[in-house]
């Protein structure tokens, strides 16, 4: 549901409409300021989506969640599974940003940027190009099947499926290098799972943007269900101004509404026809409204033709509707902004100061300890060294924790290529007399070629007989 005030649907009605059989909605094409903004938004977002994976950066794909290689490239940053926390932080930041924008401007996300909206717009556009206007579409669907209808429907399906398949391919291209993927595709050598995901995502796009459309918003979208919690009386909403519009009624253009005792709404129902979710905004704010402002454009157009003032349906706030003024700065906004800025700063700081070096110490599982021929107590470990930096490094390894602890390894030098992992077996030896306990805490310290800023310390246990 949209806001606390002005909500018309009782729970009961919501329930009924939730479970009513959905009828196909034919949104009428609309022109105007907001429609242009939406086209701009849709085009730039689609452009980014389809072009982004092809952009290269420093010898790799600029944005690549390389699942097969377990590395995430985000331009100059390379993240590893160990850095999962950063990805989680990014998601949290995105979520908070959405809260912030919602509190400020309502469901602009839904109207202009949600993938569901964006791809639905694209599919609607194809549909209109092939099948014609809303009326032509309705007529066509009412007809029995004939050669012309079959041709039109087949063309639409062909375009939809092609577009969806390309979308699916692009999607997989975010998770496995798209250049290789593309060349494998051309040679018909796509892997089984790659094919599966191309089809999976392509099919999801086709179904959601071609058929489910507004029902995704109504039944599947978590955001649509909880966005009202971020609303307050100063949040922007799309609203019809009943005081001005009612009583509604048709009239001649020349007629004086005052004489006829009519409001400004001429009851042309254009605002209903353009609505992608098929609601009547004049009934008050409804949870189905995705604030796409198509009805604003439609109504403004009518008002212009009638010679009335625009803005019978407009972006407004509850405060403004009640005759007050909208407050931009209010506690909710300030708190969201403060939290958002703090987390973003923390994130930036921790990414910048991240040590691009990982060290895992794994004890040899086969024996706790062993006695060497010289009578020393020996423990064996496998060190996993992860160079997450963009250049190769040579490392020096030190151990501490027990007096006289000696380190032996088989490699003369620890060198790890950029992005490489090295498994290094090491043996630690100590005189039995130097051990006080059965288990002593020791630490490994790994320093990258003389650069103490690039250091990791990892604790481990040394086991002995005592």
């Amino acid at each position, binding site marked *: 549901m949209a806001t606390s005030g002005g909500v018309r649907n009782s729970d009961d009605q919501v329930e009924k409409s939730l*479970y009513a059989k959905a009828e196909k909605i034919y949104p009428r094409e609309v022109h105007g300021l907001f429609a242009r903004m939406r086209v701009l938004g849709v085009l730039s977002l689609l452009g980014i989506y389809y072009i982004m994976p092809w952009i290269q950066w420093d010898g790799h794909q600029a944005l690549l969640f390389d699942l*097969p290689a*377990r590395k995430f490239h985000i331009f100059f940053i390379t993240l590893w*599974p160990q850095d*999962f926390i950063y990805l989680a932080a990014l998601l949290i930041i995105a979520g908070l940003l959405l809260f912030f924008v919602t509190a400020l401007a309502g469901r602009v996300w839904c109207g202009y940027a949600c993938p569901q909206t964006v791809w639905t717009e694209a599919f609607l556009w194809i549909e209109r190009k092939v099948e014609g206007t809303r009326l032509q579409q309705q007529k066509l669907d009412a007809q029995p099947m004939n050669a012309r209808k079959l041709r039109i429907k087949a063309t639409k399906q062909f375009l939809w499926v092609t577009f969806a398949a390309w979308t699916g391919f692009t999607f997989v291209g975010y998770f496995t290098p798209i250049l290789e993927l593309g060349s494998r595709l051309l040679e018909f050598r796509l*892997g089984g799972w790659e094919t599966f995901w191309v089809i999976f995502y392509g099919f999801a796009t086709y179904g959601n943007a071609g058929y489910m459309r507004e029902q995704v918003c109504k039944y599947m979208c*978590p955001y649509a269900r909880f966005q009202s919690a971020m609303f307050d009386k100063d949040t922007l909403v799309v609203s019809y101004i009943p005081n001005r519009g009612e009583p509604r009624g048709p009239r001649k253009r020349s007629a004086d509404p005052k004489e006829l005792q009519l409001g400004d709404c001429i009851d042309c129902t254009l605002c209903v026809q353009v609505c992608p979710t098929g609601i009547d905004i004049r009934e008050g704010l409804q949870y189905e409204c995705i604030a796409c402002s198509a009805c604003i454009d439609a109504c403004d157009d009518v008002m212009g033709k009638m010679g009335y003032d625009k803005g019978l349906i407009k972006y407004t706030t509850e405060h403004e509707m009640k005759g007050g003024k909208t407050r931009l700065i209010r506690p909710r906004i300030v708190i969201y902004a403060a939290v958002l800025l703090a987390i973003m700063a923390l994130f930036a700081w921790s990414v910048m100061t991240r040590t691009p070096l990982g060290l895992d110490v794994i004890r040899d599982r086969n024996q706790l300890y062993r006695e060497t021929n010289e009578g020393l107590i020996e423990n064996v470990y496998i060190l996993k060294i992860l160079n997450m930096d963009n250049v190769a490094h040579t490392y020096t390894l030190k151990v501490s924790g027990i007096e006289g602890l000696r380190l032996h390894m088989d490699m003369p030098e620890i060198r790890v290529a950029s992005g490489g992992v090295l498994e290094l077996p090491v043996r630690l030896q100590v005189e039995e007399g130097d051990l006080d306990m059965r288990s002593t805490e020791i630490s490994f310290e790994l320093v990258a070629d003389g650069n103490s800023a690039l250091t990791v310390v990892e604790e481990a246990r040394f086991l002995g007989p005592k």
Partner: protein
Amino acid sequence: MAEEKVPGSQKCIAILWPSFLVAIVATGLFFSAFDPDDLYPFGNETGISRLGVYSIGFLAFWFVSAVSGVGTLYFAMTNCMRSRR
């Protein structure tokens, strides 16, 4: 809501969709902790690529949480019917 009013397609969505989201999160968490290549102590003889293991893992998580969703829906609905009587 009485059970017969809810179309099957929406029951399917109510089960498959949330479990899909849960499966994404679970897969992400699980495989950032475990590398598929490390899951075989004696070397990977199955010949399944990492992408394959991720995918199978995802589908398995999806299946498991969908089963739990079926349970939830079943209990919610039978409960609802009983309270009507």
